[in-house]
């Protein structure tokens, strides 16, 4: 199996030119292949992106639920479904995500991250790292996936910071039952950032004692409901790690 990549330097020079002039590269010339044999099947991703683009272009730009941010969540599951069975070697390779960023996702990246790109920062969103748009969509969907159900990925329309700071960049993102439970609670309670931050910190501290990979959704729902009730009543849990002031 072989998969296409773009090197970092190629990505940087192409992305800058695409931003500056709208240049359309010849990908046959720019891409490099890793591995040998049959190419990975990117057909399902192409179909998912075509569907996303068609839906995006017919959206109501004034509707909150039709913002680029909302689309990122709504279509994260489709992206994951299209890519999840590819070889792990490809999914691990930043060069593969750089290729997807510029070839399949560029139309969306340019809109979604327009303010940052306008300030000259394009590489953050196409370099295959954590903020790379297709990669973060994939990780968000993976974090909340239950079989083929990805609905929670798009359940919070204005929640980029929730996913970035409280799920994907912390251990919660590695335990799907916990991430689902947190997303469900946030969907229900719509905590503002001043509330969600201390709440997320409580969850993060519990990782000091508990291996959440061992938990199911019901366990997590019960725990988070209890933490939420405590936070709003000012009581301490008897099994939460204590803080000692000395």
């Amino acid at each position: 199996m072989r998969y296409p990549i773009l090197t970092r330097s190629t990505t940087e020079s192409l992305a800058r030119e695409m931003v500056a002039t709208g240049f359309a590269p010849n990908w046959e010339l720019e891409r490099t292949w890793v591995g040998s044999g049959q190419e990975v099947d990117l057909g399902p991703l192409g179909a998912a992106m075509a569907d996303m683009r068609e839906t995006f272009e017919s959206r109501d730009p004034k509707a909150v639920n039709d913002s680029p941010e909302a689309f990122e969540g709504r279509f994260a599951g489709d992206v994951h479904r299209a890519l999840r069975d590819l070889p792990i070697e490809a999914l691990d390779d930043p060069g593969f995500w750089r290729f997807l960023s510029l070839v399949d996702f560029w139309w969306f990246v340019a809109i979604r991250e327009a303010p940052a790109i306008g300030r000259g920062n394009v590489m953050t969103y196409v370099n295959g790292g954590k903020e790379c748009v297709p990669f973060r969509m994939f990780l968000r969907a993976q974090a909340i996936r239950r079989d083929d159900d990805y609905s929670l990925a798009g359940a919070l329309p204005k929640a980029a910071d929730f996913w970035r700071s409280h799920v994907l960049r912390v251990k919660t993102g590695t335990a799907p039952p916990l991430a689902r439970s947190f997303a469900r609670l946030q969907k229900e309670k719509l905590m503002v950032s001043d509330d969600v931050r201390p709440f997320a910190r409580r969850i993060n501290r519990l990782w000091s004692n508990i291996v959440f990979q061992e938990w199911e959704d019901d366990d997590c729902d019960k725990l988070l409901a209890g933490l939420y009730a405590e936070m709003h009543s000012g009581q301490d849990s008897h099994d939460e790690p204590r803080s000692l002031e000395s």
Partner: protein
Amino acid sequence: MSTETRTVRPYVGGQEFQQMLDSCTLRCADEIVEGGGEVSVNLDEYLNYPFALLMDELDWSLAESGAAALDLDPADIDLLVLVAAPRLRFVDTIFRRDLADAAGMPDHVPLSFPERPRALRAPHGGADLRVYFCLNRDLDPRPLSPWRKGTWLGQQEYRVRSDLSGSGFVPIRMTDDDRDHLGIPQDTARFVTLDDGDPFDVDPATDIVKLYVDGDLLDRLAVATGTPVGKHIQRQLFLDATTAIVFAAHRRLTDDPGLGAQHVDDFRGSLVHKLTELIASKGLDSAGRDHRQIEFHRLRDEPTAFLAQIEAKTGMRKDMLDSFGDIT
């Protein structure tokens, strides 16, 4: 008066479980890795060589006494082995068995047979191996006793990285276009930025620290890496990158003071944690944890003094003096 906030485990006893795991090692290609350690192997070794968790030094009789000390049934405690892919953010369970028959436990757990874990097929992001003794079900809650499913009684961690993974500070050749783009003068020789990167991110991108270095300077360095002045400049570049991380961390701590109240080990894997490990140690014992936390507080309260600690670790003073050569 100073104030310190620590997270502590809210129950007593059970040290036997940690003692047991402290004697576990990871065999990684031809290397043996102690608990809390990190090993870097080449790509071929990462993808093809056998890996195993070695438990032949483990005193299983401690399981019984440890369980008795906590008034637990050994059948309620699992030995659990997880392999995580820090870049791809998934965790696979490789081995799980309860301690009802501790004496029948294997003396090693193969990690690459019959099927290689997904993380060990993902060399860009590396793999984190975690071993726990943990409760396998909810028990009746009791004060000062573990009772929740998943509560760990002992833990150990090993980090495996390949040539392709890690978050080193790889210099980027700085061109005039880069200088224009970055908004810095044409004569700038070096520039470091994290862009929007978070130094507390537990899984930082491999290129989170962008270290731009003038092309002419890089060319001269390439042929003078072993000379005193070459060593001096390389260490200075490392310090430049470190300074950028410390500035970024300090900004985050100012914006979110709650971060400073956490234990730095909560951010294991982050750039901030790596810097505290550099000054203190990587040890998972309480002395290592406490030392890292002291350094984390130094970063928070006296960032320049923290940088001095880093500089001292680099051995830069000697290189600075040597770079004068025979000039008297």
